[in-house]
């Protein structure tokens, strides 16, 4: 069965081809069956493969690879279409096909009556295929193919409703900003090949350990370059600015690409190449610090947003910050674990938000919602489940994974109080901003009526995700063999444990006091002097967009506009004009008058003679 692995990414590709080459002639039901069905089928095959893999694991074989064909071999460089399956890629494969399937089913309801229904599912299927290639690649070049492929699909889907130029702007921003990271990652690949002579991931890990010393300059350079790619894709500092804008896409896209799968690719990359990061401890620490700063920053920003999807977007940035923090302290399996639970509850939150947005007739402003818990009982219950998992309240899935990360931050040798404090501060923030969102949407004064949009393809996947969000923390992920040396065993004293359980609850309490009991007048606080400035500062992602616009975008666009006519051309046109001018000067002498010719001739003779005489 395990040799069916190649089918897992291939089935979505076939779905993509069918949907694309039907040229929009496929009506909604067959398009939905092909679109969602292909992912369902892919998930089933993944299950079969997984079962086989598990029995192989028990027999002591922990990886499987399957070569399809040689992609390119030039001299000593060789990269193939080779798939590689181990515990980590298995988990990722399940997340992608499983959650992907649920979101596809949901989308058949959400995108109902959209004129480009088939095109939507074509892009979605292509995305799943690219994402699967990314996690199943056995070499970094194939991984890069998946990496670029998901970026392309992200671009296409953010700008899916292309009539509005704003969506197009957001899509381009997402693509270009992540491309900056991709360019850095490509350089990392070149450097790896130049120094170790291969791009096969497993070989690289072995060779690097043999040939590089801990802290070697080359290890630092390589890991920094790869980190550039990771922060781009995973929307971490300093390349996080694209993710909030990516919310311009249809909501299922935000759930699938910008919460559950693609944005975690950076986490996967670092976990996959963790051996390199251990050879560069300074960079690994940097990963943790980036994660910590990002999670706090995004938490503050989430607190002041008023678009329901943007709150969730910043919360995603923040939660991925936790994963980076985990990677930074060497708790790779915790990072992957949090990646999984986050996929559950964030997909749930986004999809439920989608239902709310549908119910409110495409209204996304949370201040225009309020008091919806009676009108939307389904969405209310599901959103609450997602929120408590996000806040990491015992014993939801989010609790187990976040607790593992925070405990590792405290106990691991790479960790320390700084990262831990950042982490628990973020946990408090999460409680605050999540329940702010929840209270504002479902409690308070009702301003608009909402009508729950019902249907098995909408509620079915949501219920499945809700169950996973609640009990997903008990899933055991088989990654010990991959992160061999890191069987984690955290003994954290009761004091710290109480803090880690209590702070999120404290955050919830604060939210309750502020937004339900209104003990603090938020409007007054944010409306005046320093408060307003602070609000503005947080709201605009700490001014980073503003800064990038002025330092990079405006100068580039300005200079390009200035040189639209290509100044080099003026050199050639200038030469041509000069020639023409000289021509016109000389042509003046050709008058056709005999006396003029005689006179110039005489003068010429005179000149020559005088030169002869006087020289």
């Amino acid at each position: 069965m395990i040799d069916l692995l190649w089918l897992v990414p291939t089935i979505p590709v076939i779905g993509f081809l069918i949907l694309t080459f039907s040229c929009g002639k496929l009506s909604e039901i067959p398009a939905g069956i092909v679109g969602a069905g292909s992912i369902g089928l892919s998930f089933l095959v993944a299950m079969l493969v997984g079962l086989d893999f598990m029995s192989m694991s028990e027999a002591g074989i922990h990886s499987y690879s399957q070569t399809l064909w040689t992609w390119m071999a030039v001299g000593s460089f060789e990269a193939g279409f080779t798939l590689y399956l181990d515990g980590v890629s298995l988990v990722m494969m399940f997340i992608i096909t499983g959650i992907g399937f649920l979101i596809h089913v949901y989308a058949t309801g959400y995108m109902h009556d959209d004129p480009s229904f088939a095109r939507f599912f074509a892009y979605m299927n292509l995305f799943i295929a690219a994402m699967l290639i990314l996690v199943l690649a056995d070499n970094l070049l194939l991984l890069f193919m998946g990496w670029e492929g998901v970026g392309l699909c992200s671009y296409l889907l953010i700008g899916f409703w292309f009539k509005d130029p704003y969506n197009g702007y957001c899509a381009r921003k997402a693509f270009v900003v992540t491309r900056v990271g991709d360019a850095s990652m490509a350089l990392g690949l070149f450097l790896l090949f130049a120094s170790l002579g291969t791009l096969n991931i497993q070989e690289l890990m072995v060779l690097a350990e043999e040939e590089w010393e801990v802290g070697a300059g080359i290890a630092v350079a390589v890991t920094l370059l790869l980190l550039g790619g990771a922060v781009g894709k995973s929307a971490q500092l300093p390349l996080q600015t694209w993710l909030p804008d990516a919310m311009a896409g249809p909501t299922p896209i935000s759930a699938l690409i910008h919460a559950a799968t693609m944005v975690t690719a950076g986490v996967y990359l670092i976990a996959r190449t963790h051996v390199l990061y251990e050879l560069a401890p300074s960079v690994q620490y940097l990963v943790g610090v980036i994660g910590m700063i990002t999670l706090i920053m995004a938490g503050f920003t989430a607190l002041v947003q008023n678009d329901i999807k943007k709150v969730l977007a910043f919360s995603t940035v923040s939660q991925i910050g936790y994963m980076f923090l985990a990677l930074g302290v060497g708790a790779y399996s915790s990072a992957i674990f949090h990646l999984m639970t986050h996929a559950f509850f964030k997909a749930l939150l986004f999809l439920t938000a989608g239902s709310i947005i549908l119910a409110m007739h495409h209204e996304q402003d949370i201040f225009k919602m309020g008091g919806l818990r009676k009108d939307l009982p389904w969405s209310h219950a599901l959103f609450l489940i997602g929120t408590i998992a996000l806040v990491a309240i015992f014993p939801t899935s989010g609790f187990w994974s976040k607790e593992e990360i925070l405990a590792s931050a405290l106990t691991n040798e790479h960790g320390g109080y700084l990262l831990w404090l950042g982490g628990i501060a973020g946990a408090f923030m999460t409680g605050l901003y999540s329940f702010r969102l929840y209270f504002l949407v479902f409690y308070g004064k009702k301003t608009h009526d909402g009508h729950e949009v019902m249907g098995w393809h909408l509620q079915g996947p949501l219920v499945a995700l809700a169950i996973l969000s609640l009990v997903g923390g008990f899933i055991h992920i088989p990654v010990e063999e991959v992160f061999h040396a890191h069987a984690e065993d955290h003994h954290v004293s009761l004091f710290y444990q109480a803090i880690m359980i209590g702070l999120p609850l404290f955050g919830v309490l604060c939210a309750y006091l502020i937004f339900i009991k209104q003990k603090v007048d938020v409007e007054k606080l944010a409306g005046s002097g320093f408060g307003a400035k602070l609000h503005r500062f947080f709201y605009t992602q700490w001014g980073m967009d503003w800064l990038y616009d002025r330092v990079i975008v405006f100068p580039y666009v300005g200079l390009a506009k200035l040189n639209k006519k290509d100044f080099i051309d003026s050199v050639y046109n200038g030469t041509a004009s000069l020639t023409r001018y000289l021509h016109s000067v000389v042509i003046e002498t050709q008058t056709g008058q005999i006396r003029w010719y005689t006179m110039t001739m005489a003068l010429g003779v005179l000149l020559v003679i005088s030169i002869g005489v006087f020289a």
Partner: protein
Amino acid sequence: MILIWLMLILFAGGIGAWLSESRGIGVPRVIALVAILLDLALVIFMLLAPESIGLTPVTSEQDEWLVLFQADWIPRFGISFIFGADGFSLLLIALTVFLGLISLGSAWHEIKERSGFFYFNLLWTLAGVIGVFTALDLFLFFFFWEVMLIPMYFIIAIWGHENKEYAAMKFFIFTQVSGLLMLLSILVLVFLNYQATEVLSFSYFDLLGNGLTGEVGMLVMLGFFIAFATKLPAVPIHNWLPDAHSQAPTAGSVILAGILLKTGAYGLIRFTVPLFPDASMAFAPIAMTLGVVSILYAAKVAFAQSDLKRLIAYTSVSHMGFVLLGVYAWNAQALQGAVMTMLAHGFSAAALFMLAGGLQHRIHTRDMDKMGGFWGVAPKMSFMALFFTVAAVGMPGLGNFVGEFLVLLGSFQVSITTTAFAALGLVVAAVYSLIVIQKVFHGENKNNYEFDDLTFIEMACFALMMIGLLWMGLYPQSMLDMAEPTLRSLGVAFP
């Protein structure tokens, strides 16, 4: 002999098309189609079943010529007919004939005036290009260099758009002046070689290993370099290209971008570096820098254009910068990357120009500020535009990525700084490409343009190029294996 047949069929077809002009537009284009299809059949035989027509197949072990033809021409001056093809030239011949077919497809409904003379020029340009890719006598090479230029001049000057005389003249002057430098270099090279060896010969084989060094070698090399770099084109001698492209009829743009630019790259790989290894080595850092400058500068100018064809023209300059970089990095990966970029860019640029030309034919403007929302009007065309734009951005799985990746991988081993700047090309390519999709196909159709979607012929052309790019992107090994013996014989080490 088969190489001569390739050219003779085209020359004869061209004359036939011209002579039949009085019989209406239908006859010349059928004659042209037959000629190109015959050539295509020959090329397919050469590629797939070389034994069946008496050729030795390309294998990675031997570095012999697949086919070599020699005959005297002007023996007094050591000038002879030497035509040869190895894997590298065969790939380019295949590209030429294939894009010849595509350009015919794009001209099919577009060219209505003097169509006989048009197809004459089209076929003669193609024949000239095949001559360039096969001639191994420098005099003969120069002869074909001119043969491909003059019909192209007519194509722009007669069937071009609003500013065609200016563009055609500019194209002619740039190519002539740089060609003159090459002719001077050829003469000096032959003369010095005669002084040294007492053999008066224009043969490529006799001139290899000429031992020219020092300042003379550098000057003679520069003559070649400037001619080829103008054709490529490289910044700052690229200015003929945007005008020629934007003014040429669609078929002309397809041939210019798809094939003619590649003759410059071919010349660098086949002649400039092997004939003058020392001078080239010394010159490599400058050439690589020029490559990077081309990549970034042209990308920036492209971004600012509102004329769709001009924009695509500048992207060509940018992409050919990768070729220049790859050639002068001169190692296995970089050169294979340059070859792949030549082929893939041939397809993607030809397709994009065909799209732009098709649009201009339909709505009579190239101004992107007037366009928008065409996805709603012509979804097939928009999908094709998206596909080829994505190819040009360098998406893995399509041919252009293989080329650019290998170029960068190879050049990284030679110069890290240069490569780091070149890698920025990946970012700026996204900037200028996506703006095209936005301005033309996305957004609102402000001026309410209504026009027909792609015709059957156009769809067929695009489908062929699409398959080609996918093939190059997913299984480039088939082409890399063809080019490898050539590159080995040119002295590239394949460690």
